[in-house]
């Protein structure tokens, strides 16, 4: 996996044979920065060429499409200058108007000039691809870019990153990555009514595209408080640790981005997260034995889940996630749990056919059974969290299989 960094480097070198040594080094750095920022998640389509755009992003307001950021003259950034690029990254302004914050400029604003320069050098070095992309597919009135002026007033401050001298260099590096290039808050921070960050609840968890991006603060109940620095780093690098296995969009983040981070950067992120204040999330009183859902859920669990996750939820480390006493099942939103139970899940970065995975239970369990078993999990073995209703199950089931009976 890390070898592909070298491979890509070699490929980009071929594309820019006239580059000098200093340039090559900057391009290589820029390539790494693109991995840190996970540019390709939005700018490289599944069946498309690198950075040629075309990725559909489902925002609460409608669809946006990641633009073509190859150096193509007509359809890409071929006519852009570094200043244009810098302004996009720092202020959210493109050559044709405001950018929607789906391009996470509120985070990227923190990227240093030096890093932007390297990134720009890299982007200029990739193969130009003629691929016209219409980014703005939002319905009226959201497609009126000038509205973003107001949005920016509410939600954006273009403050560059500043080191905190009272913290370690690793913490600062971690802060730079999490708040900046990593734009973790893009998914993990709850949003206000205008879909801007609820900065008071930074990294406290949010539902994106009906996946729950968990609380990743140092809160032990809901976040990564029980995880060590090594656990977090392992998760970023491999998609799994003794607590959890990445699934859905985070599995893609690991596959496309964080698995390529250096160990030092992964650790820096971990240190930053661990040393930050935890969110205010706390456990409700657990549902007790008087709740019939718990008893029914226990039966469903025994028949369908025990085989891998264990009779008391311990799982098997790095193979079958632990469900006992873990934030994984306690999230404010059960969206990810619903997605995984209904639709199954594959290992984060392991795409081999026989890679561990969880089967889809949509056919085997009805709405009440899934409601019962998730309510059970969320209130057993040291867990306490809100119940999951059959209505919520039905909504997710229909979201995944529109028209299902």
């Amino acid at each position, binding site marked *: 996996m890390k070898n592909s960094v070298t491979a890509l480097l070699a490929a980009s070198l071929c594309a820019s044979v006239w580059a000098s040594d200093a340039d090559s080094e900057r391009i290589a750095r820029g390539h790494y920065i693109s991995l840190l920022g996970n540019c390709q998640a939005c700018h490289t389509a599944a069946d498309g060429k690198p950075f040629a755009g075309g990725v559909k992003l489902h925002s609460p307001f409608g669809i946006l499409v990641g633009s073509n950021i190859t150096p193509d003259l007509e359809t890409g950034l071929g006519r852009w200058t570094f200043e244009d690029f810098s302004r996009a990254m720092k202020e959210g302004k493109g050559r044709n108007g405001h950018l929607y914050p789906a391009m996470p400029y509120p985070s990227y604003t923190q990227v240093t000039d030096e890093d932007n320069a390297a990134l720009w050098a890299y982007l200029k070095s990739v193969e130009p691809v003629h691929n016209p992309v219409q980014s703005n597919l939002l319905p009226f009135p959201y497609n009126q870019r000038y509205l973003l002026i107001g949005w920016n007033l509410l939600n954006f401050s273009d403050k560059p990153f500043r080191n905190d001298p009272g913290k370690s260099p690793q913490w600062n590096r971690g802060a730079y990555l999490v708040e900046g290039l990593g734009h973790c808050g893009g998914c993990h921070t709850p949003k206000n009514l205008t879909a801007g960050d609820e900065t008071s609840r930074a990294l406290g968890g949010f539902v994106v595209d009906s996946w729950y991006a968990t609380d990743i603060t140092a809160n032990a109940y809901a976040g990564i408080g029980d995880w060590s620095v090594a656990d977090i780093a392992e998760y970023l690098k491999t998609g799994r640790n003794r607590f959890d296995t990445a699934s859905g969009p985070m599995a893609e983040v690991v596959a496309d981005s964080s698995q390529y981070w250096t160990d030092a950067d992964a650790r820096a992120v971990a240190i930053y997260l661990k040393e930050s204040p935890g969110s205010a999330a706390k456990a409700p009183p657990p549902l007790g034995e008087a709740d019939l859902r718990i008893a029914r859920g*226990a039966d469903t669990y*025994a*028949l*369908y889940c*025990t*085989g*891998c996750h*264990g*009779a*008391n939820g*311990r*799982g*098997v*480390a790095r*193979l*079958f996630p632990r469900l006992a006493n873990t934030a994984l099942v306690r999230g404010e939103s059960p969206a990810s749990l619903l997605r995984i139970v209904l639709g199954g899940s594959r290992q984060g970065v392991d795409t*081999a*056919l*026989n*890679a*561990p995975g969880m089967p889809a239970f949509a056919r085997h369990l009805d709405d009440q059974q899934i409601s019962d078993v998730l309510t059970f999990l969320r209130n057993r073995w040291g867990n306490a969290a809100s119940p999951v209703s059959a209505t919520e199950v039905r909504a997710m089931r229909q979201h995944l299989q529109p028209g299902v009976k």
Partner: protein
Amino acid sequence: MVTFELNGKPYSFDGDAMTPLLWAIREGAGLTGSKFGCGVGACGACTVHLNGEAVRSCIIAVGNVADMKVTTIEGLSDDLGHPLQKAWIAEDVPQCGYCQSGMIMSAAALLSQIPAPSDEQIDEYMTNLCRCATYQRIRKAIHTAAKN
């Protein structure tokens, strides 16, 4: 080829990596103590230990356990020496006996985590199915084993 540790010794299975671990054990390695009851992980007759945790081997692809440690009923002890086996004999737990390998493996995992479980803990943990309903003696035997 999938290689893992089976009852303390390296074992390589050269069939399809998607073969359930149970069949790799029963037919590949010839260890028929772990049983087939349902094939969907519901009954527990196929219970083995994977890195010390009780799992149901009929629903785990053998390819998933590469480089891990698998222990079957045959590997639980030499000569019926495990406290649970002694207790199972003292209480004469089995009737038809078919579920008992899996039952003992589940109980062994339980005792490794909770050395002296209460009735409630046994009730919660032991969900292997026994059609003959030897449950009363199972519970008694677990208590007996826990004392020793």
